């Protein structure tokens, strides 16, 4: 058995909730920079406005629930929810869209269930799905990446958020849309025809995903979460893609590399799937949880009708997490698997 071979005192600095949340916020920075580089200031404004609304909603909920304001605001969980939802939303979203999403995430998905630690669903993803179902037009209009279309400046981005009527942006189909809608081409033709597809998985998107991967790897290095769930998700997504990909036709759903580096794969794998509250907790449970999410992401991406599938897959598996935990409880030392004593 690997026991510690050092003498006392065994002091250690445990990760507090607020420290973990700050790490997560910090880890989103590379991804946000990549998003800002390719899609303009929209994401930054999304995040800033979402954080303001989130703090307001969190304070309101805390006052209504008669909880101490300072203590709960300091844990930064509202900011993390806001940031994750803002990153997931299309840049240049109008202010009311973000506000509705954050309000649903914080008030309905988090505080109605009892606040941080009690929520069965990931608040950011619940807010995202509510928005996607309620406002499909606004939620599916992604602006074109730098290099293909004019990227709005800071002033225009502000205008898009706070005076949406006057803003006129260029939206384009995302690589995942293109892949889903084209069923009758060879991959080479598809790539030659649509410059949005970039080199591997979409102009801009591949770098955004790599940046989120880098942020996630740093979180892993800091031991904010374990490798099981994200790796299982990425592995099962690749496996699904590899199983169904026939190497050349666009009807077969895209290569594993395409799926790994497109859409919200890396963001989901390292920032959503790893949510300690809503995911499974046992080691084997996390592997199953992640793998199921990966399989669902692929299925919904290829067969579904929505821009991406991470949010739906995560919510479905959030529902299943307690069941998974129930069946994967590790055996406690000195007890039989059936529960009796040895």
């Amino acid at each position, binding site marked *: 058995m690997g026991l510690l071979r050092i003498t006392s005192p065994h002091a250690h600095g445990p990760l507090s909730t607020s420290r973990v949340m700050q790490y997560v916020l910090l880890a989103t920075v590379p991804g946000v920079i990549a998003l800002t580089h390719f899609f303009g200031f929209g994401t930054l404004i999304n995040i800033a406005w979402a954080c303001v609304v989130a703090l307001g909603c969190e304070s309101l909920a805390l006052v209504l629930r008669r909880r101490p304001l300072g203590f709960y605001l300091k844990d930064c969980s509202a900011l993390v929810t806001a940031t994750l939802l803002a990153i997931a939303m299309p840049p240049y979203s109008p202010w*009311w869209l973000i506000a*509705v999403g954050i309000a649903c995430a914080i008030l309905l998905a988090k505080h109605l269930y009892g606040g941080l630690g009690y929520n069965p669903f990931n608040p950011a993803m619940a807010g995202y799905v*509510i928005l996607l*179902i*309620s*406002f499909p037009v*606004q939620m599916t209009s992604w602006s074109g990446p730098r290099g293909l279309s004019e990227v709005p400046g800071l002033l225009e981005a502000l205008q898009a958020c706070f005076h949406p009527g006057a803003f006129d942006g260029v939206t384009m189909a995302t690589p995942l849309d293109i892949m889903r809608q084209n069923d009758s081409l060879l991959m080479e033709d598809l790539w030659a025809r649509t410059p949005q597809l970039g080199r591997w998985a979409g102009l801009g998107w591949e770098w955004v995903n790599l940046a989120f991967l880098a942020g996630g790897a740093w979180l892993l290095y800091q031991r904010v979460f374990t490798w099981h769930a994200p790796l299982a998700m990425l592995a099962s997504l690749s496996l699904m893609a590899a199983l169904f990909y026939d190497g050349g036709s666009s009807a077969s759903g895209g290569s594993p590399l395409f799926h790994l580096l497109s859409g919200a794969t890396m963001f989901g794998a390292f920032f959503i799937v790893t949510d300690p509250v809503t995911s499974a907790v046992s080691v084997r449970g996390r592997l199953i949880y992640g793998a199921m999410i990966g399989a669902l992401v692929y299925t919904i991406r290829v067969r579904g009708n929505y821009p991406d599938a991470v949010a739906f897959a995560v919510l479905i598996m959030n529902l299943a997490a307690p069941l998974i935990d129930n069946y994967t409880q590790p055996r406690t030392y000195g007890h039989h698997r059936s529960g009796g004593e040895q």
Partner: protein
Amino acid sequence: MSEVSYKELSVNGLWKNNPAIVQLLGLCPLLAVTGSVVNAMGLAAATTLVLICSNTAVSLIRNIVSDAVRLPAFVMIIASAVTCIELLMQAYAYELYQILGIFLPLITTNCVILGRADGFASRHSLAPACYDGFIMGLGFGLVLVLLGAIRELLGTGALFANMDLLFGPNAANWKLVLVDDYQNFLLAILPPGAFIFTGLIIALKNIIDTQIKQRQDARKDRPVRGAKRVRVTGNIS
């Protein structure tokens, strides 16, 4: 057969024992057709009428029907009442009849109605049974209309659209557009919205009940002026 007070019946039907938000009966129509005020009103009216008819009929035959066959008999009565209402709606509010669709015949299986027939009407005389049917229907209908109003307002930014389906052509311009240029919040109109807002209404009712109870308790515990403390354990009653 105890004496019933109409006041108690009213409080029960409208608040304390409200079929929709306390007994949670008849949730299927409650969730399914409350997308707008007019739908909710149509179904509320139909349900109330059926409740009154069935309660009246059940109360009239309560001494003839034996216990063993009472449930089939009640269901027969309810089904005939529903059929009558359905035919009436078909005649006078055809478009609404089409919108409500399957949920009109399904009133037959609404647990509120059988519950009241078996639980109340079969044990009471005609007048209280009839009144109970009316007030239970009203309690159910008010929740239905409230939910319909919330969902229509949030979902479409307007209220009382298409009221002409129920109140004739004069009502066509009753529509109140509260917010111009409103982006429809589809979730409120879709089924999940019904669940969420029903839950919120129930929560609101519970909050009000708790507040009332606290206020009553506070009044009860107020010490008598000029009274001196005595060493006691527990409360003096």
